[in-house]
């Protein structure tokens, strides 16, 4: 399932996939895969993404 909240939060911070990838120390393709729902990140990567975007885990990764 696509993670549109991650995409929206990234766009809200005016960050490209590459910029976010550089901030969290992964490849651009990994960020793209998380957004597309092709890859389930580890909790460490989830936390790193949330910190980079100033969001909580619930904001980005919790399904309602």
């Amino acid at each position, binding site marked *: 399932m696509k993670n549109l909240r991650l995409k929206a939060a990234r766009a809200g911070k005016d960050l490209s996939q590459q910029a976010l990838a550089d901030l969290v*120390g*992964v*490849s651009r*393709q*990994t960020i793209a*895969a998380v957004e597309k729902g092709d*890859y389930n*990140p580890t909790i*460490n*990567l989830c936390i790193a993404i949330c910190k980079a975007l100033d969001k909580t885990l619930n904001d980005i990764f919790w399904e309602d």
Partner: protein
Amino acid sequence: MSILIQVLFLAIIVVSLVWGYKRSQDNHQYDERQELLQNRGYRYATYAMFLTSAAAVLFGEELSRLLNVSLVALVIMLAGLVTYVFYAVLHDAYFPLNKNNKLVSAGLLAFLALIQLLVVVKNLLNHSFSAYNGGMNLLLFAAFTIILIVILYKKHLDKKEAKE
């Protein structure tokens, strides 16, 4: 002479092990998704080597007319290598995070493939081509060319994706 080759072989093994150990210590080269996919690539490479080995046993008689034992071993190793590289490149797990100049790798592969091709052509022109004379070069040329094509194809896909 054979002792020299054995010592050289052992030296290559030791250097490879030390290099591999040092690389494994540097955990910032690949991210978690890349490592996961690389491990999957190694698994598929193992399956490919099992299948090639089984085929070599099943069709041993037919193969012995075309290839010698060392070439069959090379085919098995190349099947594993090409499978791993094919899978890792197509899933963006082949190049380390900070490696931007992927075309350098493609250039190096093209150079290696060209050298192998020159040896094959030279043997063909001299009418001396056989499994023992140039056969290994033909197999290496095929493997390097396949890997090169996959890298260039992936580069093309990345460009297309960036435009979108």
